[in-house]
């Protein structure tokens, strides 16, 4: 057959596309379970880190099973609430996608809560949040003490913030600042501010911003406020 003819080119490209499509479809389907597992493990790890657990996950011989064990040991309860603080039935809080929830009207949002029981018997309430950094999404988990006011721990992660600048939000040094901060002032929700130039010592509602990472810091502050705001009613109700 003449290799320069239109028919040859047409047949050649059709066959090529079909073969390639089949190949990629097979590969994608075959690898999906592994990829899903990685994503779930990472989420569990983030949740555990916010209460200071699973610190040696990097050295675990089997990361997946180690984290799954820790998670089922530490997280004793998980549920979703709505904006008026009432529990929503029939929602798997672990599978809630915050991006989807944020797109819904406020009253219909499902807000996940993970309850951790630590070795000393105290309970911590972990809430997830999602926001926008400079280059891409940032997300994190905040754990609160039983007074639903004091922050016990925080963990943040990002997709593509600048290394050395905005990406510092993912370091433990930055996250440690949140310990002991309060989100309510006299029953009024004030969240935690990320203050450029540094928070005053003794300020229980502010932490130091990342130097050189102004927009990421601002994004983090917005994420905290927007993320925690929806839980206000739940916090108030649970305190009583």
């Amino acid at each position, binding site marked *: 057959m003449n290799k320069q003819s239109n028919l040859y080119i047409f047949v050649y490209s059709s066959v090529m596309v079909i073969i390639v499509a089949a190949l990629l479809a097979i590969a*994608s389907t075959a690898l999906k379970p592994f990829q899903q597992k990685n994503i779930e493990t990472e989420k569990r790890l983030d949740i555990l880190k916010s209460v200071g657990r699973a610190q040696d996950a990097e050295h675990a011989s089997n990361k997946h099973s180690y984290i799954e064990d820790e998670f089922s040991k530490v997280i004793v309860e998980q549920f979703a609430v709505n904006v008026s603080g009432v529990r929503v039935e029939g929602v798997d809080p672990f599978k809630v996608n915050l991006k989807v929830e944020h797109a819904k009207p406020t009253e219909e949002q499902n807000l996940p809560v993970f309850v951790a029981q630590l070795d000393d018997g105290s309970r911590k309430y972990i809430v997830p949040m999602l926001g926008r950094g400079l280059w891409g999404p940032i997300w994190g988990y905040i754990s609160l003490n039983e007074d639903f006011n004091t922050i016990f721990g925080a963990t943040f992660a990002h997709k593509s913030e600048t290394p050395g600048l905005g990406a510092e939000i993912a370091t433990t040094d930055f996250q440690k600042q949140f310990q002991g901060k309060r989100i309510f002032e006299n029953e009024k929700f004030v969240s935690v501010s990320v203050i450029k130039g540094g928070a005053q010592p003794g300020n229980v509602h502010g932490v130091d911003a990342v130097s050189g990472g102004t927009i990421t810091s601002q994004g983090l502050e917005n994420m905290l406020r927007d993320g925690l705001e929806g839980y206000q009613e739940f916090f108030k109700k649970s305190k009583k």
Partner: protein
Amino acid sequence: MSVKIESEPLFSAKNLKLITDPINKNNPITVLVLGICSALAVTVKLEPAVVMSISVIAVLVLANVITSLLRNTIPARIRIIVQLVIIASLVILVDEVLKAFAYDVSKQLSVFVGLIITNCIIMGRLEAFALGNKPWASSLDGLGNGIGYGIILVIVAFFRELLGSGTLWNLRVIPESFYIKNGGFYENNGLFILPPMALILVGIIIWIQRSRTRELIENE
């Protein structure tokens, strides 16, 4: 040799040259100045740089071999499209495999694995070499160029991680106690973390390479 011998040894001098040439005299990054963008982006740490190099080597060798096998069937008018399809499918496969088995690294590399597709080295080798040569020679050419690319990446990443973060392969090299914040005298050089420093390092490598390899210097 007056007559061309049909079966030459697998690692003949000519074939070996296919591997060694791109490592020095025809290095894709420092001499041909191809694939610079990814060299800047993934060299903050050693680990992603090595994974990126391995990925590029894998894609380049396989793409070269596949193109070479198909070279007599590919219609000349759509050859670029065919090459692109081959590269793109291989890159997607690499990306999926990394996501499944090296999730942390794939997160660090993020979009740059996908951007292997646009790495000019690969397209360049397919067009310049694989379309006109046998599979074995093509695979060696791919290997050589991949290694040539990888070596530069690793050298750049070595210095950037060491001087920018004080670690190598995420292990601490410069002791914590040296740092000013712990009462020492040392501070990481933040410039090494940012892309411009990679460009400067590549420039220094080119400088050293040219002063050692005289034939690379153009005559006026």
